């Protein structure tokens, strides 16, 4: 008799989700799905709103990465206005986006992933959390909190609010940077470097213990997509999209936001509110790809900053060609945080950053526009249509977590096969299946644009449709 295992809720994620593992008559894993069980409807209720309200409205999709939504949305609005924003505004936004990437990666690495990595996959769930981490390694706990504060504080200095700052607007930003604020940010950098070095050393010391997890944590060939700068270096805020195959060869390059919909389609599966984007010429599901830190480091040729460059070279040694195991998302986050710190320092070193001209203005000059940015979790795409008065008539958001959806499902299947035997799993096995999803650091509330409760569950369902085992955490 076949059965289904359900993990509900999946914990230490941003958002609520559930995993079901279907067993066949012999008790072997037949299929496994990661469900996103919430729906929110941002695209629908933005209809009828003036387009220039969209960045503020869309930032409310998420409290973790509101900045990415602000930027992608503002860029879509700028396409509608047909303006190019002042260079200083572009650099200020770049810094804001990097600050958010650092705080979000710090959240993912220290608060969500580290308990598994540093306390062990088998550790008692009661201590396998950020408080347990802080008790076991207080210095590292403090470093995590410090790095998160660093990113949040920059966002607050620039935008007046830690979450949902209203500073990014269509056409640029509302206020230039003052010399005093610049100096405050510069003064925070040495501590941030030290905190990151502590985390990187800790990770490198223990990474070797996870060889078994590396093998089965969503470890398969896939294509990857991310923004790249025109000199092939990493890019979070501008640039164009590049899609590479499992060998790292470019499939398509130079995809602008306006051409995104030509290249990328969105499939729907009955078990999840999150869509499954895919590269149209390859079809669904062959055209599915991964995004986020792993994809970015697999695609770019350089980081463009000296310390991160060395770390990238070390990262690229992990595999011959693209690094395929999603376990290394954690490693990639550390490299990207270092880049973030260096780039923020570089941006602040330019005296033009204090320029007062930070806003371009225009009305509705086109009735359709799209914009993209790299959110911490991967490519984020906003696409709007407006009427002649500038009111939104249609909106579509393609979110990083959606683009990783297929890979997360494959990863859950791969891990379930490794950790579920005879229709049962151990506590450590269950946690590992969740940990696969955690490597992607998915943001479920973003991906469904949802309301309701958030915890994740695992269910084992028999061939007859009977729930034989169920674990719920909240």
């Amino acid at each position, binding site marked *: 008799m076949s059965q289904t295992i359900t993990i509900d809720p999946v914990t230490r994620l941003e958002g609520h989700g559930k995993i079901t593992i279907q067993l066949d008559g012999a008790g072997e894993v037949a299929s496994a799905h990661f469900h996103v069980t919430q729906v929110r409807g941002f695209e629908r209720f933005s209809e009828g709103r003036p387009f220039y*309200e969209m960045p503020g409205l869309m930032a409310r999709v998420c409290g973790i990465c509101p900045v990415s939504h602000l930027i992608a949305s503002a860029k879509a609005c700028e396409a509608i206005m047909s303006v190019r924003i002042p260079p200083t505004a572009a650099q200020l936004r770049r810094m804001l986006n990097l600050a958010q990437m650092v705080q979000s990666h710090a959240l993912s690495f220290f608060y969500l992933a580290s308990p598994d990595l540093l306390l062990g996959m088998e550790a008692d769930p009661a201590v396998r959390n950020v408080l347990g981490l802080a008790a076991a390694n207080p210095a590292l706990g403090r470093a995590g909190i410090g790095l998160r504060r660093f990113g949040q504080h920059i966002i607050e200095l620039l935008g007046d609010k830690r979450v949902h700052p*209203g500073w990014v*607007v269509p056409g640029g930003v*509302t206020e230039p940077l003052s010399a005093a604020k610049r100096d405050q940010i510069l003064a925070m950098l040495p501590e941030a470097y030290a905190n990151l070095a502590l985390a990187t050393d800790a990770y490198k010391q223990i990474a070797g213990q996870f060889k078994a997890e590396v093998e089965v944590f969503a470890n398969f060939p896939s294509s990857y997509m991310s923004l790249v700068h025109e000199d092939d270096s990493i890019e979070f805020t501008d640039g164009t999209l590049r899609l590479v195959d499992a060998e790292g060869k470019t499939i398509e390059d130079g995809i602008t936001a306006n051409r995104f919909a030509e290249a990328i389609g969105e499939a729907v599966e009955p078990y999840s509110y999150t869509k499954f984007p895919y590269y149209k010429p390859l079809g669904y599901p062959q055209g599915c790809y991964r995004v986020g830190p792993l994809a970015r480091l697999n695609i770019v040729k350089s980081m463009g900053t000296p310390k991160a460059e060395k770390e990238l070279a070390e990262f690229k040694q992990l595999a011959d060609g693209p690094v395929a195991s999603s376990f290394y998302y954690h490693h990639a986050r550390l490299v990207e945080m270092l880049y973030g710190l260096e780039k923020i320092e570089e941006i602040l070193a330019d005296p033009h950053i204090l320029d007062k001209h930070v806003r371009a*203005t225009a009305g509705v000059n086109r009735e359709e526009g799209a914009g993209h940015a790299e959110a911490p979790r991967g490519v984020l795409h906003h696409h709007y249509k407006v009427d002649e008065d*500038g009111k939104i008539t249609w909106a579509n958001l393609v979110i990083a977590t959606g683009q990783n959806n297929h890979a997360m499902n494959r990863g859950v299947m791969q891990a379930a096969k490794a950790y579920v035997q005879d229709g049962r799993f151990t506590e450590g096995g269950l946690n590992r299946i969740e940990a696969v999803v955690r490597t992607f650091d998915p943001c479920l509330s973003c991906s469904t644009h949802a309301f309701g409760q958030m915890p994740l569950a695992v269910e084992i369902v028999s061939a007859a449709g009977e729930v034989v085992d169920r674990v719920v955490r909240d």
Partner: protein
Amino acid sequence: MSAENDVRTLTIDEQEVSARPGQTILEVARENGINIPTLCHLDGLSDVGACRLCLVEIKGSNKLLPACVATVQEGMEVSTDTERLRRHRRTILELLFAERNHVCSVCVSNGHCELQAMAQEQGLTHVRLPYRYAKFDVDASHDRFTADHNRCILCLRCVRACAEIEGAHVWDVMGRGIDCLVITDLHEQWGNSTCTRCGKCVQVCPTGALFEKSKIGTERPKDPQFLPYLNLMREAQ
């Protein structure tokens, strides 16, 4: 007795105050540093008693009177801050929030909104009434301004500013009860109306119902304080 010496004496919140005949209770209270909450009242415009937040109790009367239009009488004993009044004021605010779609977090006036500030001042923590979720269109046809009826509280400041100060009387009111709507001309689109583009209605609007296009509240808070100055200049001519 000359007009200068014609004085009314009354008490407001047990404080003895004197007033000229014809002054409103609100005027006299504010002259004496006593705060009575208002939303539709604005210095420089006539008063219409639309919002009812300024209701006060008069000793010897069961009726509550709107302080912005009730005139002082000799020997009146006025209370402005009783539990009954506070309850009524909170209910009025709840009704305002429930009637249309006031979503502070994504509003252009967030942090600079008189309705929001009043709700905080009156200690409104939640709305006990079910929201209506009424559907109102946004009029974005004007090249400079936008009207979002979702955020309108029908204080009619725009109507009064347009008629009394600008002298254009483009804004007016149609419908009754929950169908009541401020309109431009005979319900034309704002962009096609006889609007003089002066923007006074936008400056006096207490919420995000009328606002400048492409501007969010944090970058340009409204400044409704210009009206007394305009009136003063007009009288000086």
